[in-house]
């Protein structure tokens, strides 16, 4: 029995310390999913906390045959999709709320210029993600950040595997189009695939 399985069993029997261990172990993937989905640190913190509260309340109904991370991410993803649907018509500025949360460039890195460029690219990607449909966004985040298979994404988002494939393809194409438009506005720069490492 792994640590996680043991903690789940203990938590299902009312051991709060075991549940705290689960929170400690899965806080980063859950928070990251919420952050990528909602686009702001405060909302992501709230959503991640709410996710763990829902998990705490429904842990008795968790089927141990299922993957716990997939079940956990499923709750987080659906919570975020609900949040996004609720605020669909209200405009939110990402810039205002990201303070203190975005990855800062590492000035001590061997090449600070590259580091700044990398940071800008990540910020740009983060903004582009916000343009996607919530379900497509969840699929992309689970695919790239949580290394979920298409099958796991399908089960998490209650979709079929072909639907996940189609959504991922469409989302990446949409991101590429926006990426291209932004690149055209910001002027010529060296492309990563042109580097010898690509």
């Amino acid at each position, binding site marked *: 029995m792994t640590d996680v399985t043991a903690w789940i069993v203990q938590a299902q029997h009312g051991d709060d310390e075991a549940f705290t261990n689960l*929170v400690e172990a899965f806080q980063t993937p859950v928070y990251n999913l919420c952050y990528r989905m909602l686009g702001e640190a405060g909302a992501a913190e709230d959503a991640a906390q709410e996710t763990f509260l829902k998990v705490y309340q429904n842990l008795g109904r968790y089927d141990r045959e299922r993957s716990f991370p997939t079940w956990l991410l499923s709750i987080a993803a659906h919570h975020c999709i609900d949040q996004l649907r609720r605020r669909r018509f209200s405009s939110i500025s990402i810039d205002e709320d990201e303070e203190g949360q975005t990855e800062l460039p590492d000035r001590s890195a061997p090449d600070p210029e590259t580091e700044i460029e990398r940071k800008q690219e990540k910020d740009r990607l983060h903004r582009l993600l916000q343009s996607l449909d919530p379900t497509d966004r969840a699929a992309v985040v689970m695919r790239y*950040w949580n290394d979920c298979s298409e099958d796991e994404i399908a089960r998490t988002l209650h979709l079929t595997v072909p639907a996940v494939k189609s959504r991922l393809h469409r989302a990446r194409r949409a991101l590429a189009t926006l990426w291209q438009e932004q690149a055209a506005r910001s002027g010529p720069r060296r492309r990563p695939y042109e580097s010898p490492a690509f």
Partner: protein
Amino acid sequence: MNHRPFDDWLLADQPLTAQQTRDLQAHLQNCPQCAALAEVNLALSSARLVPPQAGFTDRFQVRLAAQKRSVRVRNFWGFLILVVSVVSILTWLAWPVLKIVLQSPVDLLASWLSNLVALWASLQAMSHVSAVLLRVMPGFIPVSAWAVLLLAAGGCSLLWAFSLVKLTKNAQGV
């Protein structure tokens, strides 16, 4: 421009052959759309997980404690509302009786006591009458009537025992 199979290669998880890599590089030089897709795919693949601010678990514990408290308070108020509702409904249903009780409690108590005494007296009278009847009746009934009565009772008992045996056998057969 035909983007196939390049976009499939870009998004595939399997590593490409040397020839495929060369073909893809050549295509990317001339196709800005696939070049953007390659850049996005690379950026997504190299993106790192963003951790929450330090103390996430502590904040969760505070939130969990607050939620447990609010559930306890909600349960208490729910129980209180239920009790008040039940008491109110019972009071409303019993109001006609309660009104009388409240108006003249001594009269009502006296009436209940007198009813109890009357009931007790009736029961005693009935027991006296039954005792007298049991003592007097045998003398009035002739011996032949007793014999018929006994025979009828014996026949009924036999019939009852026979049907009982029959029913038990049928039940075992099932």
